[in-house]
């Protein structure tokens, strides 16, 4: 139980905080002043360094601003979301917080807890420099609600070049399922597991299915499926799901005991040859496994090489926060072209503004940024980026868990039809 002293102390702290905020709401001509609380789940090495790149730019353009970095560690953001949910329910709204564009953002829009940024997009000309597919993933009922920091690509197939050579396999910039199947046969004959998988956490297997579906059915069909406008029991979908079932049989036998970093480690070692993973694996391969881009490992895409499955992080401004002007200043700092490069260099994702030079980035990132600017964009369902209820993504990963046991593509389709239409 709280002692009397503790209660008095906490009351004092709370009233001091209230006074501080009310004093700070007076804006001045030279930049925004007052407190801005930035709520995120970026606490680890490269992530917090990337966040600091934004925060220092914000401080530079607004010297009078007081930044509170309220990052909550752990659980890929689930811990932070839990803390945020309680704070929003209590009316203690941060000026800005991190959220995924798509269903998660829609949840906050439905609760009317985030500001509409459409006017800001117009006045700053952001609509002209951000690919339309990305703006769409943050737009709901014609209103845009968040600003992106950077984009990861989910649909890359990473390959171990030495392992492929050993089996006499080579891939171009894209592959079909038939090519993968032929390669799998040769790899098995050479004693190498064709697929690297670490699906102790189910999202990695779900991502494999998602990229198979996007690759074989195309971007438009996948978007329709996610939105409940196409049937998941369609013959073509069932075939693609069965291809996924086949791919699972190619995986390393300990896949259920590894996480995604374990799968990347196995790829680097060469005990297995291909890993379908987002380009956060790129950082893992370069930094942790000390492998060289295009020498030790290569990359390809299932289906159309111009298709880019996006996983972005974005920030919203709290509608009921005390200092929305400071939130707006933060959004402008995020969109600053210089911040775009600095942030993404540290985070390993691709800058998405079409008007920034990517010359200072690595070879893979340059290629990814180019595809991002010119290719077909699909928001990832597995990573909650599709503009559908979060429960659809959950149904998808639950469906994959069941699929692993019973291999029943038709039953999976039925369950997904129910989830997307419900």
């Amino acid at each position, binding site marked *: 139980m709280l002692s009397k002293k503790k209660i008095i102390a906490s009351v004092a702290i709370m009233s001091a905080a209230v006074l501080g905020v009310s004093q700070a709401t007076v804006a001045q001509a030279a930049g925004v002043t007052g407190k801005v609380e930035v709520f995120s789940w970026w606490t680890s090495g490269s992530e917090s360094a990337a966040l600091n790149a934004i925060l220092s730019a914000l401080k530079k353009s607004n010297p009078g601003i007081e930044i509170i970095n309220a990052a909550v560690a752990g659980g890929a953001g689930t811990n932070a979301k839990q803390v945020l949910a309680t704070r929003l329910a209590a009316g203690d709204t941060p000026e800005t917080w991190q959220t995924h564009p798509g269903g998660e953002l829609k949840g906050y829009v439905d609760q009317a807890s985030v500001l509409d940024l459409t006017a800001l997009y117009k006045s700053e000309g952001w609509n002209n420099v951000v690919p339309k597919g990305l703006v769409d993933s943050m737009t709901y009922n014609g209103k845009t609600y968040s600003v992106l920091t950077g984009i990861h690509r989910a649909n890359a197939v990473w390959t171990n070049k030495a392992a492929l050579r050993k089996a006499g396999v080579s891939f171009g910039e894209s592959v079909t399922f038939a090519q993968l199947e032929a390669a799998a046969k040769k790899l098995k004959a050479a004693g190498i597991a064709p697929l690297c998988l670490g699906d*102790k956490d189910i999202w990695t297997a779900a991502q494999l299915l998602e990229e198979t579906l996007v690759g074989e059915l195309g971007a438009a069909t996948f978007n329709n499926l996610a939105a409940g406008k196409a049937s998941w029991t369609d013959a073509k979908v069932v075939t693609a799901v069965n291809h996924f079932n086949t791919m699972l049989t190619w995986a390393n036998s300990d*896949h259920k005991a590894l996480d995604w970093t374990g799968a990347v480690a196995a790829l680097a070692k060469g005990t297995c040859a291909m890993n379908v993973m987002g380009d956060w694996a790129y950082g893992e391969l370069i930094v942790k496994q000390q492998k060289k881009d295009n020498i030790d490992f290569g990359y390809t895409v299932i289906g159309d090489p111009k298709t880019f499955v996006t996983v972005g992080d974005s920030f919203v401004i709290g509608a009921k926060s005390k200092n929305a002007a400071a939130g707006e200043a933060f959004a402008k700092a995020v969109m600053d072209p210089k911040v775009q490069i600095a942030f993404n260099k540290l985070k390993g994702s691709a800058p998405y503004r079409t008007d920034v030079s990517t010359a200072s980035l690595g070879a893979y990132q340059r290629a990814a940024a180019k595809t991002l600017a010119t290719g077909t964009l699909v928001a990832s369902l597995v990573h909650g980026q599709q503009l559908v209820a979060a429960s659809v993504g*959950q149904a998808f990963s639950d469906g994959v868990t069941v699929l692993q046991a019973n291999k029943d593509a038709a039953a999976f389709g039925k369950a997904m039809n129910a989830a997307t239409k419900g």
Partner: protein
Amino acid sequence: MATINKRRKFRFKPATVALLPSFILVFIFVYIFIAYTIRISFSKNWMPGLQDFSLPEKWYGTYQELFTNFRFQADIRNTIIFTILFLAISVVAGLFLAIAVSNMSKSKVFFRNLFIMPYAVSFIVTGVIWRWIFNPVSGVNLLFKYTGVSGLYEKAFGSPLEPDWMTSPTVWGNVNGLLEKLIPGGDVLQAQMGIPVALLPVIFAASWQLCGFAMAMFLAGLSAIPHELREAAAIDRASGFRYYRSIAIPSLIPMAVTCAVILTSTSLKIFDLIYAMSGSGIGFSTDMPGIYVYESMYKALRYPLGAAASIVMLVLVCVVVLPYLLRFNKGTEE
């Protein structure tokens, strides 16, 4: 006399005054919130910040969805299997260890501490370590291989001993046909009802961690048995086995009940061990209601569904704990 009695009625006893603050706090933070959670579980689409308490089309709709859901059915199955086996192994192993340790003369303290040590380790640590041990490629299977156990097994049964452990999708002893005859409404079971093989390593890890706790309780019980009883048994020339069977173990039964209730409430709420060790498993073979609640609320953002599942968990815990508490209360009143 009468006036004194009257006065006593209106005076707060010091004990009441001392307990009142904690009573109020418990009332608010436990019982009010349980009521709140029940209310959320009967709402259509409650969200924090959107306090919408309107009912779904069928007022029990969320619960209906819950119980017809493949995943939740598997969760209930896993909870029951996990609880029974975990309880049996921990209690039996704990009893065995307690008897062994109590008969030691020199190294008693050393072994007592050795067996209790796992209990001090966090479930997350246990989970990660046992995940590595039960890895079918790099874990305990290598031990089978290099000690020649796998080779002997191959000679006897034709294939090497390489269990899949947590990566196995097999469910032993499917009793769906039998259960569907018993449950009114017939064809409602989606998940296979049986013993998921992948759950066994997890049960083993949990028992490894908590059998030391059971041992400590039994050791306390054994030391409470009057010395005279043992001496009398020795005079009657009862063997060691006979002494334990007829005297020591029967007198440990209250201890065993307390131990079982504590362990059951641990197992019904288990989350961290599973989360770190195996995740949900193939076909939800190692999923638990706790993980389901967490994912429904914070991943799927379906608060009513998560609330309903957590109420089901609460009911399960009550089924185990309430009879014990009632008995305990009776005992103290007498």
